[in-house]
């Protein structure tokens, strides 16, 4: 449009040059199609208006949709945990198995009273947390149902390596009844099951303040924990300094125990992690070898093509060829 109107105005200029008698005609037509004399102002106005429209629409959009609506208060949302530099979360690092061993001790002595670990069998502990003998001894402490015998009776037998760690309660109802209506979740996948993973569980375990902040409303039997969404959690603080006695004589501070048990729970949630990382390394190594090999093979295959030289050697023009 702009280009066409410009063209038209130049045409009109040409007409003006031709004679004065076309003056009236020109003034008529220019007033109709945007005068050449007025065009800078009008263009300026148009530019300013369009810019104002652009800025205005952006501003209006952000007025309408810019601020995020939070349906929940920060307290209901729960405090987001700080990011801790977990060693086992690094790409080329495994679980610290000494920490796993300590963490299992914490689980067994503290958490196991209320929380089950139903997806972890004793055999999984062998070689990662315990030795075979230790795991066997541990399994034998519990009784499990046998297969029905000849008379169809189900007897009890001591546990074996293939048995799973027994839950503290018979079922969820029993667990609720024993814990004031709150169900202690199963811990086998808890690291994967909670937003924030290791950092969240660690912060939750160590984050109980000595007393709730002034004015905080807590339901009966609830404890204040800033990291728990809603800040009222049924589980009271369980980890206190010196609660367990580590066999490797690590000082059992609250945060040390929390770190160990969180690492253990992460192992429980993804016991394949060490293998997975090793497999990843294998894949990268083999791929690197194959890549290098492919480059050498390519060089070899192309060697004849790349190094050949096509030479046209024309016969010398001479008159006495056919003498």
């Amino acid at each position, binding site marked *: 449009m702009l280009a066409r109107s410009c063209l038209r105005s130049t045409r009109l200029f040409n007409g003006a040059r031709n004679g004065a008698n076309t003056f009236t005609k020109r003034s008529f037509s220019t007033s109709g199609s945007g005068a050449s004399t007025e065009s800078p102002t009008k263009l300026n106005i148009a530019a300013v208006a369009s810019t104002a429209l652009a800025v205005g629409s952006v501003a209006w959009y952000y007025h309408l949709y810019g601020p995020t609506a939070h349906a929940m208060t920060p*307290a209901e949302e729960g405090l987001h945990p700080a990011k801790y530099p977990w060693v086992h979360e690094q790409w080329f690092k495994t679980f610290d198995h000494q920490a796993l061993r300590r963490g299992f001790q914490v689980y067994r002595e503290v958490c196991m009273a209320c929380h089950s670990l139903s997806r972890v069998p004793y055999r999984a502990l062998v070689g990662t947390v315990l030795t075979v003998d230790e795991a066997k001894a541990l399994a034998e402490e519990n009784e499990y149902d046998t297969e029905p015998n000849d008379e169809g009776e189900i007897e009890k037998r001591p546990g074996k390596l293939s048995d799973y760690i027994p839950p503290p309660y018979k079922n969820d109802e029993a667990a609720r009844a024993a814990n004031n209506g709150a169900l202690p979740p199963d811990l086998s996948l808890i690291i994967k099951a909670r937003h924030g993973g290791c950092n969240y569980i660690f912060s939750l375990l160590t984050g109980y303040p000595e007393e709730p902040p002034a004015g905080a409303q807590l339901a009966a039997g609830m404890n204040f924990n800033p990291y728990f969404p809603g800040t009222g959690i049924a589980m009271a603080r369980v980890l206190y300094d010196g609660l367990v006695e580590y066999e490797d004589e690590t000082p059992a501070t609250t945060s040390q125990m929390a770190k160990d048990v969180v690492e253990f729970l992460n192992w429980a949630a993804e016991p394949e992690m060490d293998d997975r990382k090793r497999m990843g390394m294998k894949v990268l190594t083999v791929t690197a070898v194959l890549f290098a090999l492919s480059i050498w093979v390519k060089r070899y295959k192309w060697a004849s093509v790349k190094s050949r030289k096509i030479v046209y050697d024309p016969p010398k023009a001479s008159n006495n060829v056919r003498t």
Partner: protein
Amino acid sequence: MGIWETFTDLVEAATPWSTAEAEAPAEEKDSAQDEPQEAEPEEEAEEEAEEEEEEEEEEELVDPKEKLEEDCKNSKVCAPAKHHYDECVERVTNASAEDEGKEDCVEEFLHLAHCASQCAAPKLWSVLK
């Protein structure tokens, strides 16, 4: 036990990817017998009351996280959050009977706790094992 096993043993010992066996060495058999005694949390819970008294006398453990976070709360970084929190606590505790329950300091507490934990997080791991 043929001669082949000798070779495979030698190769396994030399290769870095040889697997570590999970079986306990023979010396540990004594400690394995002690294990079951340790692994009875119910009994320990009863004894804990006595043990705790002993432990308090023996050593006073200081949780590094609490100490670091306390330092962080009093540091310059968290001064604004702490200021708001302290002010809120003062206001709420001094509130009159009618206003009671209208305001709480949870949000101020969250800001302070967030600041303190963010500040202490990188330092904590160097202290813990």
